[in-house]
């Protein structure tokens, strides 16, 4: 899978680095924990910028190319920051046969960005995800932790408007 790599300058704080170094210290003796460390790093920073990957590589004493290889292999790792509101439209099979593509088209049309992109104001980003396991509610969309099920295209405007603050 191709991943979009962010050009936004890195803006990590000292507190974030302390958190990350603590996690690295706990796991550095076990190289099989690398994916766990990267998952935690993404929780701290919201994504895995190049600078964070370097910190992990140095801390765990694992080549950077391996970290980069893992980060591009797994869907969960993001190389670009997410918006304040991350919109995930489920494109699992159950949702797809119930019209999830139309829902995704409507969301991209409304926000003016495609999947894996973030709006210029940093408010919204879109993900086309594979099955969040709520197939009984298909088609489903998540905005951060809020789940919207049994969607129809004409509900999209109203739902997104709720997040305009």
């Amino acid at each position, binding site marked *: *899978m191709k991943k979009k790599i962010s050009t936004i300058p890195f803006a990590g704080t000292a507190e974030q680095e302390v958190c990350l170094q603590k996690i690295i210290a706990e796991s550095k003796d076990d*190289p*099989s*924990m*690398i*994916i*766990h460390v*990267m*998952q935690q790093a993404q929780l701290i920073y919201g994504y895995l910028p190049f600078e964070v990957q370097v910190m992990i590589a140095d801390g765990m004493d694992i080549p950077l190319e*391996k970290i980069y*290889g*893992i980060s591009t*292999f*797994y*869907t*969960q*790792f993001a190389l670009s920051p997410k918006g304040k509101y991350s919109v995930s439209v489920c*494109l*699992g*099979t*159950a*949702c*797809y*046969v*119930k019209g999830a593509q*139309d829902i995704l*088209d409507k969301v991209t*049309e409304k926000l003016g960005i495609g999947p894996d992109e973030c709006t210029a104001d940093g408010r919204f980003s879109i993900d086309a995800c*594979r*099955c*969040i*396991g*709520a*197939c*009984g*509610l*298909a088609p*489903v969309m998540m905005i951060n932790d809020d*789940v919207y*099920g049994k969607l129809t*295209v*004409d509900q999209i405007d109203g739902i997104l408007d709720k997040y305009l603050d």
Partner: protein
Amino acid sequence: MYRSHVLVCGGTGCTSSNSEEIITTLEEQLVEKGLADEIKVIRTGCFGLCAIGPIMIVYPEGSFYSEVKVDDIPEIVEEHLLKGRIVKRLLYDETVETDTIKSLNETAFYKKQKRVALRNCGVINPESIEEYIALDGYQALAKCLTGLKPAEVIQIVKDSGLRGRGGGGFPTGLKWEFTAKTEADQKYVVCNADEGDPGAFMDRSVLEGDPHCIVESMTICGYAVGATEGYVYVRAEYPIAVNRLEVAIKQAKEQGLLGKNIFGSGFDFDLHIRLGAGAFVCGEETALMTSIEGNRGEPRPRPPYPAVKGLFGKPTTENNVETFANIPQIILHGAESFAAMGTEKSKGTKVFALGGNIKNTGLVEIPMGTTLREIVEEIGGGIPNGHKFKAAQTGGPSGGCIPNHLIDTPIDYDNLTAIGCMMGSGGLIVMDDTNCMVDIARFFLDFTVDESCGKCAPCRIGTKRMLEMLDKITHGTAELEDLEKLEELALYVKENSLCGLGQTAPNPVLSTMKFFKDEYIAHVVDKKCPAGVCKALLNYYIDPKKCIGCTLCARACPVDAIAGVPKGLHVIDTKKCIKCGACMDACKKVKAVSKV
């Protein structure tokens, strides 16, 4: 003692439709009314009927409330829990008869089901080890450790006829025996909970509803094969399941049912959880082990098989969640009682995640040999909105479809393989006449291209070329000879790929080409999509007899492709039209716009 128990579903489906808030509100109101000592609220795992969630059952009456909202709670508390009057309007309508209430097990959805792997889901509080123990939990483990030799445990599993529920259907007992026979200083047990098939959620429901049964079962497996450590590899997308598993492991350790010297038998077993990071290929057993070791999850060639050289290079037994979920029952009740269910070569039950265009979406567990018709028409309640059944897809991106004329096929491993389909892990998606089979094949291929790890060329390049051909077909630019090329390439990829992902990726294409050739021909020759799904092949059309000249469609059109004056006939310029469907939405009342 409590006089009433209120069970509220805390599975992902119901949690997504707000069951957490229902539980908090209910608990608050019980305290307010002074009922907290009389009525107990229990958060359970999945009941299976996700379509009508959030679900609540009140015992001892067994009242099954569906689609409960937070606003309904005061009425339930006041009427039912305080005054003993069942709130009829909230009952699941299938349970209501003219003057009596049917038991849940008599409803069409549950009647034909047989719950073995899901026996505790929706019954116990998954975060309470006491409730699990009260329902015979950890008894199977006790029986093994205190009364059976490892070889005897393996013999029971072999005799039961249990086959791997992850899709392949390899005999579980045999797999255990291979690992047991390999000599090594360290062996491992791995539970595959990386449920990657989009549209399948059986394993998640077991982990959420009955996590202790996986802990118990993996320990039994460890004893049988001689392993002292186990790993559960579970999707990070399943936070509730991960959390309940962590709780279960902690409780089991506190009770001495996991860790050192279990049941005083001298047997040690420890469990670790590893979170997947979203890669479909990691459902393949060697790829999963590579991922646990901290690498890109690429598969390894077999042999050597994991039973000889698996996780960290040591002999390893890997089974999927549902396979493990059957083990305690087999040990407790004997191989014969398990083998009595199902067909000749497929014993026991199978859990399916029923989804797509069907009324009762949710989780069902049926004895092997049940026909698809029984699942779709009886358990599933049929196709909604007056549409017609077209096909059911099993096995997700690795499987195939079962068309209408084979709807009476008894479902088991061998029957499905014989019709070019496969059991898969249990996703069962129902499709009706609004679904285009070429588009479905393209959808799955798009998924496998995305998820191909890239290690071997047949899968990496082959699936991509196949997707390009399918794109041509759905865009109406393909020729008849492209269909031949597509089939040839599909067979080549199937034969030559390294792992299960590539070997099965062409299945959705081959199976739809076999049963729905006419739809492919319609796309290629007539340049039409019979189901009206493929955008490039359809046109919007305004029926001159129906159009009342209200101008709504013209105003809704984002590209000004509709010409017409008020009160006059409107016409769509198909060259300008971008096929967004806005005109059809705008014309809902008059219904003059249609897809052709």
